[in-house]
Structure formats: C-alpha cells, structure tokens
C-alpha cells in the first residue's frame, strides 16, 4: 500500500462512472434552442479531434475517394486531352480501346466528358457548401451574440426557409433567372442555407449558454473575442459536418437542376452529361455507358462526403461507433455480461461480513472490468460483502470509485464494455451470475429492486406513471390491467401521493414526487433487497430528508434490506447499520456506521468524513485530500477490531500547503 502524488495531468474518474449525464436526445418542438439530434458529444480539443478522425476507417475511405477525384480534377488535361465537346461521326459507340467508355449519340468521348465534368460539378458543390456554411455560421454567431429579438427573427426566417420545398423552389427560381453556372450557385445557396443555419444556430446558442463564455466575459473579454475565440473553435467539428452536408446537397441538387435542363446545358458537368444522355434517348437505344459514369461519379463523391461526415459524428459521439468484438453481451440492453463467473477461485480472507445468520446478499470477490479498445480498467476489484435480512448496508465513495458498478453488477445490469470477470453474487443462496435470461428477469425487481440516482431520468417521459407501475405487475404476476391499476393506486398512497396521479406523466411531478414514485415502484413486489444508488443527490435537503424518512417508514412496514449508495457520509452514517468505503474499485474500510463516525482509520475515509463539517460545536480546521493524491495497490482488508476492517495504509507522507492550518 502506498500513497502517491501524481503531479502530472491525470484523469481522475474511471470510465465506469459514466461521469456526466449524456445530453438528452429528444428534440423538443416547443423550444428551438435544443441542440440537433445528431452529434451530441461535447466539443473536443482540436488535436484529439483530428487524430481520432484520421484513425477512423470510414474517414480514411472517404478521404481516399475524395483524393482520387481531386487528382482527376487536376490531371484532367493529361488524362483526357481531347476536347470533350468535340462532335464526331462515331455516335453511340460502346466502350472500346479507342473510347474507353464509349461515345455519346453525338460521338463525344464519354471518358473525356466525365473527367472534365468533375471540374464544374465539384466546384459548384464546394462553392455552395462554403457559402451556405458561411451563412449558417453568421446566423449562428449573430443569434448567439445579439440574442433575444435578433435570434427570434433569425430562427423564424430559418425555419420558414427550411420548410419551403427545395426542388420546386429551385425550379421556379432557376426558371426566372438567366441560365448559367452562377445562377445555379446562387439558387442552391438560397435554398440550402437554412439547413446549415438551423444546426449552427442551435449549436452556437448551446455553447453560448456554457459557463466558459460567461467566465470569459467576467474576465473582461470583449464581445468579438468571445465570438471568435471562445465560441467558434468549439463549433469546428459541427461546422465541418455541416459543410460536408451542404456540399452533398450542392452536388446532388446541381445535378438535378441540370438534368432538368435548368442549368447552362453547354457547360460540361456530370449533371449536363446526364441531361444530354437522357435527351438523346441513350437509354432507349441501350447506350448505358452514356449515363453510367457521370451518375457513378456523383454517387461516389456524395458517398465519400457522407462517410467523412459519418466519421465526424462518430468521433464527436463515440457511442455511435460499431462495437468491434461481437462477444456475448456486447449487444445493447439484455442479459448483463458475465465472462467467467468461476465462483470461489481466489478467496480473500477479508470480507465485510457482520453477522452469522443467512445473508440476503452475499458478494464475494466480485471483479468488473471495463474493456476499452486500448486499455482495460478495473471498475470493481475483488469486492466482498454481505447484507443480512432487513439490514441497511452503506457503500460510500466518490464518482468513479466503483460503487455504482457494484450495484449494477448485483442485478447484472452492466453493459459493454463492462464485464464481470470474477467472483460471485449470491442472493439467498442462489447464484445470480449463473441465472439464465428468463430466471434473471423474474429475479429482477421481484427479489432485488433498485432506485436510481436521478428520478428525473429513470422514468419514461412518454408513459403515465400508472402505466409504468402496471408494467411491473403485469410482467411479474398474472394480473389483469384493472387489478394492476388498483394496486398501483394503493402503492402511490403508500408513499403519500394521491391516487389520481396515476394518470400523470413524469414531467408533471416535482423532483421529490418523482423519486417517491420510483420508490413506490421499487417496493411494488415486496423485494427482500432494495438497492438505492444516490437516491437523493439531485434533490434539495428538505426534500431529501422527507424521502429518507419515507424510506425508513417503508422499511419498518415491509422489512426489506437496503444497499445504500451515496457520497454523502453524514447521510450514510445517519442511515446505515454497517458501511464500507470504496476507492478505486476496492474497499478501504468497512465497519458499523457508528464505528466509522467515532474512529475512521483509513486516511481516505477521514478525508471523506471531513468533507462534511459539523453543524454544531466549535469550528475546527478540516483537511481533505490534496489535489493529485492517489492511493494505489490497496491491500485486502484486515480486521482491526470486532467488525472493523481496514485496508493496510500509511499516513500520507506529503503535506502540501493545503493541509496546513491557516492563521
């Protein structure tokens, strides 16, 4: 056991923490300020972004195809020296040595037309993309900068233009304007900017609302700096994907317009090639070579841009990536992954066992790994404890310490990349990790139920709470819907919520009420063990106190045992019979709650305790952990007194200034 102070930059949290809630993907019609549903990851530092992008296979393929076309574009005079518009007598010739891709009805060389056509098509596409993106960025920044009325007006105009059907508008505009490439570009930008503006506006607004913008303002930065040095760099990845999207739009729409004969048909481009092929009746005479190459080129370029765009999405939101290895449980929601549940292999002597009676829950040497692509992190490391009938067992620790990992492992709710690699979980003697899927489903909620951290997000927003409770009954018991509803109403009254609220949707209830609904749901089947994962963290203290009182009442009435998880040591000591402190996937101390309060042994336990100053008595200087202090190689627990187990440790030998007593 050693204490190390890592001075270099180090990431605190283990990946299992899932540390921050993912942005909600629901597009809310009512508020237009919601970010787009697409890439939902936060802004990334640019270095990492480019590097990850280069590593993405989709991006590589996309860039490869684009490079090919760039070469085609530049080398056109070398590859196809002849004038592509030259009319010869050799009309409608199939591919041959002389004309590799055959000739058109007018005897023009298709290969030359295709190669030269790339110039106009790609130029128009990129110009349209550039202009539309520029307009989009301007709208976004203007909305973010001026706010209020300007934003309302801009968003209104954007949405109106977004709704106008693009192609008919294009056709009408193009019909009234003099034909030519310039017209095509203008018309495409007029119809295409709104899509870019919508995405970039909501992005700019969401970044505008971030604290770092306010922080820059408070530091004294001017508006221009804030716009271009704070906002813009964080928009880079989305600006890029918007640009790619509008280029695709540009190339495709140009081809469409020209195909209809609305462009300048004397220009050589992929679109006009197709126009002439169609006009000359190439299809009817079976001259497939006249229209195949240009269409294929359009598709290839669009495909390459889409791939690139897709890669940008994947890099900003890694969840979208297709999981590599397809092993058991890599698929989404399902059984909960168990790789080898070889029970009773390594047995540590120490276990946080308090008493002799048959335990409700017995966890032994539970080990969970998060298997990333590059490295594996241990989320829970040989964790052992038992919970007796009707007992409240507390699990304390900070985000990323593995306490939620343990809770999820008990119900086998872990998802890839988390894998249970060792140990056993026994519920009343039954091996949970060995249960087949159908047994597991009936074990869940009937035997062990769970109250999740955030009641806001653990209820389905589009189902009434009544239906969500009914779901529990109809799944686990053979009851009619009517009977289930009646029982659901009784359940609500148990937690002092009016029965009429059965028909309410989650958003119609206050935070405290929602958590009560979840608690009611949890005790619906009278489970013998209730896991509570930070049940009150998001709530104000007054509500928190009431929820905890509610749980105490229910426990008196129903007699279930509780696995209580929190980072709030005061709350934990008030509520738990016995408790354990977890750090880096390991237990560092375990004892009756009163013992922890009276004499915490491990320095980490003491640091946690000190984070909650007392409300009475003299004000004394308390110490926390200094920044960068890490405990490593935590050994097995050793019993230092009856029921008091502590991991071997030294006192931290470093004493940064933080810990000195100020004057």
């Amino acid at each position, binding site marked *: 056991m050693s204490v190390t102070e890592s001075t270099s930059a180090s990431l605190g949290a283990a990946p299992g923490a899932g540390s921050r809630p993912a942005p909600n993907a629901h597009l809310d*019609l009512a508020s237009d300020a919601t970010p787009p*549903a697409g890439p939902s990851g936060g802004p990334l530092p640019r270095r990492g972004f480019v590097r990850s992008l280069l590593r993405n296979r989709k991006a590589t393929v996309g860039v490869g195809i684009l490079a090919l076309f760039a070469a085609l574009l530049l080398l056109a005079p070398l590859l196809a020296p002849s004038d592509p518009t030259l009319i010869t007598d050799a009309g409608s010739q199939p591919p041959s040595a002389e004309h590799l891709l055959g000739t058109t009805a007018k005897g023009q060389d298709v290969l030359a037309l295709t190669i030269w056509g790339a110039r106009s098509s790609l130029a128009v596409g990129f110009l349209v993309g550039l202009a539309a993106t520029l307009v989009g960025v301007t709208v976004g920044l203007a909305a973010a900068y001026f706010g209020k009325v300007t934003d309302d007006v801009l968003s209104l105009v954007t949405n109106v233009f977004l709704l106008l059907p693009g192609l008919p508008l294009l056709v009408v505009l193009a019909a009234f304007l003099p034909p030519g490439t310039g017209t095509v570009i203008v018309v495409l930008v007029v119809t295409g900017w709104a899509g870019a503006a919508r995405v970039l506006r909501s992005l700019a607004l969401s970044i505008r609302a971030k604290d770092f913008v306010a922080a820059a303002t408070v530091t004294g930065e001017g508006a221009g700096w804030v716009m271009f040095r704070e906002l813009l760099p964080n928009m880079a990845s989305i600006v890029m994907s918007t640009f790619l999207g509008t280029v695709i739009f540009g190339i495709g729409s140009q081809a469409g317009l020209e195909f209809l004969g609305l462009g300048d048909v004397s220009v050589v481009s992929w679109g006009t090639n197709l126009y002439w092929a169609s006009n000359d009746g190439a299809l009817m005479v079976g001259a497939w070579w006249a229209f195949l190459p240009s269409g294929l080129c359009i598709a290839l370029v669009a495909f390459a841009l889409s791939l690139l765009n897709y890669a940008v999405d994947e890099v900003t939101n890694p969840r979208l990536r297709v999981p590599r290895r397809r092993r058991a449980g890599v698929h*989404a929601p399902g059984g909960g992954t168990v790789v080898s549940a070889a029970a009773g292999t390594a047995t540590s002597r120490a276990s946080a066992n308090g008493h002799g009676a048959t335990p409700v829950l017995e966890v032994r040497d539970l080990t969970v790994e998060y298997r990333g692509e590059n490295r594996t992190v241990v989320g829970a490391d040989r964790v052992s404890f038992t919970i007796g009938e009707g007992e409240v067992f507390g699990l304390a620790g900070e985000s990323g310490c593995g306490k939620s990992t343990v809770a999820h492992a008990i119900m086998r709710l872990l998802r890839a990349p988390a894998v249970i690699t060792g140990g056993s979980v026994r519920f009343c003697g039954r091996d949970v990790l060995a249960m087949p899927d159908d047994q597991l489903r009936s074990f*869940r*909620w009937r035997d062990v139920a769970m109250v999740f951290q955030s009641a806001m997000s653990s209820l389905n927003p*589009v189902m009434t709470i009544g239906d969500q409770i009914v*779901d529990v009954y109809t799944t686990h018991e053979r009851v009619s819907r009517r009977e289930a509803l009646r029982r659901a109403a009784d359940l609500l009254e148990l937690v002092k919520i009016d029965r009429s609220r059965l028909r309410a949707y989650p*958003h119609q209830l206050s935070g405290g009420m929602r958590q009560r609904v979840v608690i009611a749901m949890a005790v619906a089947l009278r489970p013998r063990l209730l896991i509570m994962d930070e049940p009150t963290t998001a709530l104000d203290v007054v509500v928190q106190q009431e929820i905890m009182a509610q749980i105490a009442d229910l426990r008196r009435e129903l007699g279930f045992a509780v696995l209580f998880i929190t980072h709030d040591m005061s709350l934990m000591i008030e509520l738990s019979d016995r408790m354990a402190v977890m750090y880096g996937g390991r237990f560092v101390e375990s004892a009756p709650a009163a013992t922890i309060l009276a004499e915490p042994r491990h320095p980490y336990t003491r640091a946690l305790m000190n984070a909650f100053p007392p409300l009475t008595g003299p004000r004394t200087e308390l110490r926390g952990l200094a920044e960068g202090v890490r405990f490593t190689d935590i050994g097995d627990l050793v019993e230092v007194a009856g029921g008091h187990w502590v991991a071997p440790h030294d006192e931290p030998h470093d004493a940064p200034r933080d810990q000195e007593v100020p004057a």
Partner: protein
Amino acid sequence: MQFVLRRLGFYLLAFWVSVTLNFLLPRFMPGDPVSRMFARSQSRMTPEQITQLRQLFGLDDRPLWRQYVDYLGNVVTGDMGVSISRFPTPVVEVIAGQIGWTVLLGGTALLIAVVVGNLLGILAAWRRGGFLDSMMPPFLVFVGSFPYFWLAMGALYLFGVSLGWFPLRHAFSAGTSPAWTGEFASDVALHLVLPAVTIVVVSIGGWMLAMRNTMIATNAEDYIVMAEAKGLRPGRIMFRYAARNAMLPAVTSFGMSLGFVVGGALLTEVVFAYPGVGYQLLAAVQGLDYPLMQGIFLTITAAVLLVNFLVDIVYVRLDPRVRVS
C-alpha cells in the same frame, strides 16, 4: 392547444412568405422572362386572358401595393390564371388533375421508406455490432448517394428496357381509362413499382441512420436501465420504452425532410413520365408556362406545410411534455 395555434401561425407565415416570393419573382427578376412568354403565346389568347395574366405578372401600371393586394386575393380564392402550355385550361384545374398521382407515388414511397427505415434503425441500435448495425448503414449510405433520377434511369433501363418486367412510362397503360376496377388498380400498381422503389431505396438509409443514432442515445437513458431492472421483456423495452421515445425526433424530422422527398419524387416522375405535378412542372418550365410553374410551386408548398401541421398535431399526441405547455 396553444402550441398548435402557434404552429398554425408559423405555417401561415411560411405560406405568406412563399406567396410573396412568387409575387416578387416575375417582377424583379432580370431579363424579363415574362415578356418572352407573352411574345410566344399572345396570339392564342383572348384579350381578357391577356389582361388577367398581365396583372398576375405585374405587366400593368397599377401601383405595386395594389398589385400585391390583388395577388393575395387571387391566391386565397384559388385563382392562379390559365396555363399556357395547356391553354386554355386554368392552372388550378391542371394541378387538380395531376396531384392525385403525386400523392399516390410520394405517399406510398414515403410510407414504406419511413416505416421500414425506422424499423431497421431500431433493430440496428438494439443489436449493436450485428449485421444491421455494421453492414447496413454504409451500404444504404452508398445507395442513398445516387441521385434519384439516375437510379430511376438505371431501374428503367434494367427492369423496363432490358428485362421488360415493368412498364416504361406513365401511371397506367395506354388505352385504358381510369376506373374503379381491380384490373385498372393492378395496372396502376404495376406502374407504381419502379418509381416508388427508386424513391424508397434512395431515402431509406437516411431514416434508418437517424433512427439508429437516436436509439443509441435513448438506450443509454436511465429509464431504459430501469426498465431492464424491472425485469421487463426485451421486446417491450425496445418498443414501449426505447423506440417510443426515439421516434419523437423522427417525427419532427419527418416534417422537415418532406420537402426533400417531394423534390425526389418530382425528379422520379420526370424520368418515368409519371403524370404527377413534378412531370407537369418540368413541362411548364420547358413551355415557359410561368403561371403553371408558380401554381405548382404554391400547391406543393401548401401541401408540405399542411402535412407539417398535421405532423405537429400528431407530435402533440405523442409527447405529453408538449401537451401541457
């Protein structure tokens, strides 16, 4: 209710913008294309028709605001002048005769693409790393990269010209006339296959990918984990909990992408000479038939806005959070 009214106001505004755009285009565009049109077709018209068209396109000396007010009045009462390419049929009648085919083609294709695409997306997100998740998206992206009209031409060539499985053009066989008989219906269905499949194939990938991505985000929500913890059956979690929430953004984007789908349908109609408004629009462009062109544009816009409004009403039914506010 307030939400619905607000949206209605918004759509009315959008429609007003497109009407105004229509009003301004012939009046302020360079090159005076309208005069060209008159030069070409004046001889066939009666003096009243000429006066009416001149008013419609601002070739009279009334003040602009007066023209504008009259124009708005005309549009509201459905008077959009006479078609020039199909002289002397009024524009409204031309459109009325063809919009049914566009609705049939676009509606069928859209329905299939949306339902199948979203189902594929749901399944892909549910079984991460499976065939649907790993192979399907790139493939569909590739197929979706082809221009509508090009795929239509390919299909026409392959299945129409070469193999002869499907008819080459129009919505029903020459010689038959529309009637409510099984024979005619199957004839129409046969003509519908190629154009509809073209649209479905090009657009399905977008639906699938969008749904997959939203589903992946939804699957990470706490209420999905909670539903699993409740011991619910996977099918119920997938549809009632995950897909039910993930479809909300899909419904919104349905309205948004309607304009694009309509555009694709127009191009497809052109290739198959399918007698809908898209085919007619091209004919109008080629015949310098500005009244018809504008009429079609306004009709399509109105239809798109109407469908969007209906989608909003559906959305309110689907998302209880909007209902209250």
